[in-house]
């Protein structure tokens, strides 16, 4: 670094541990200027370090977590409602299409099967719930 010209930017980088510099060489043309800048930088640091951040701010972290949970639940509900409506629409559409193609007899047959068999499906479900 001794052969290359040192700039104020290099001094700043060195000050903040971003760049290694050999000690400023008195043979540099701008040695006085750089040395003065380096001193000013140190003084500036001391002045800026006066800033404190001990202001009182009330943050309820648990409250924020609860709020986030509430938002996530609402989003989940919206998603589930949308999926339900979309699925119901698709099923009804397919059902209508098949009925239109095969005739109303198909519709009546399916309805009979559902009304007769569906109550029986509740028995194993009730048993599972009791277990």
């Amino acid at each position, binding site marked *: 670094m001794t052969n290359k010209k040192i700039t*104020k*930017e290099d001094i*700043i*980088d060195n000050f*903040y541990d*971003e760049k290694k510099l050999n000690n400023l060489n008195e043979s540099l043309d701008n040695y006085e200027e750089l040395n003065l800048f380096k001193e*000013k*930088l140190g*003084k*500036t*640091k*001391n*002045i*800026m370090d*006066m*800033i*404190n*951040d001990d*202001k*009182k*701010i*009330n*943050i309820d*972290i*648990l409250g*924020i*977590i609860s*709020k*986030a949970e509430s*938002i*996530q639940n609402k989003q989940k509900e919206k998603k589930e409602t949308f999926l339900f409506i979309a699925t119901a629409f698709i099923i009804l559409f397919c059902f209508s299409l098949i009925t239109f193609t095969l005739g109303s007899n198909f519709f009546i047959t399916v309805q009979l099967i559902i009304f007769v068999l569906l109550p029986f499906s509740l028995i194993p479900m009730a048993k599972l719930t009791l277990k």
Partner: protein
Amino acid sequence: MDELILIKKAQNGNKSALNTLLTNNYPLIKGYVIKMTSNPSIAEDIIQDTMLKAVLNIKKFQAKAKFSTWLITIATNIYRDYLRKHKTTELIEETQQSSYSSPEDATIAKLEYKEIVNIIMKLPYEKRTVFILKHYYGYKYDEISEIVNCPIGTVRSRLHNSIKFIMNELEKGGILIDQ
């Protein structure tokens, strides 16, 4: 408890771990936002929004960087969006407890303190962010580059310009000379 373990637990839905994680990082994020905004009222809103966003997106956090760095990134973005919505922000007068021997010394110190805060707030948002992250928190250029999402050269340039501006303002205000 190791932060990585806390993060894993929080991502799995453990509220206690999430609370501990946020509480541990609260002083850092609070200090950063206060320095950025210099307004406790705005800082409170920014911090709350930051924490809320962090909780909502905790599963997206990848442990490539520190959790505090992630929080600072969120806070930086939220504050940037706030500035875009509100073109002007007022600086609320700071009150500082003094331990000076005379009222005159306390007044001078208070004026100097206010002047220093004003100087930081005069910096454009982009430069102020870089300066605060570098000077007060010791982030490296590449880390700052990730946080503010700009090239390292730009970060370096912003820091240099900020330092020169601050030094110039301190000299004009007669504060640097007095030290």
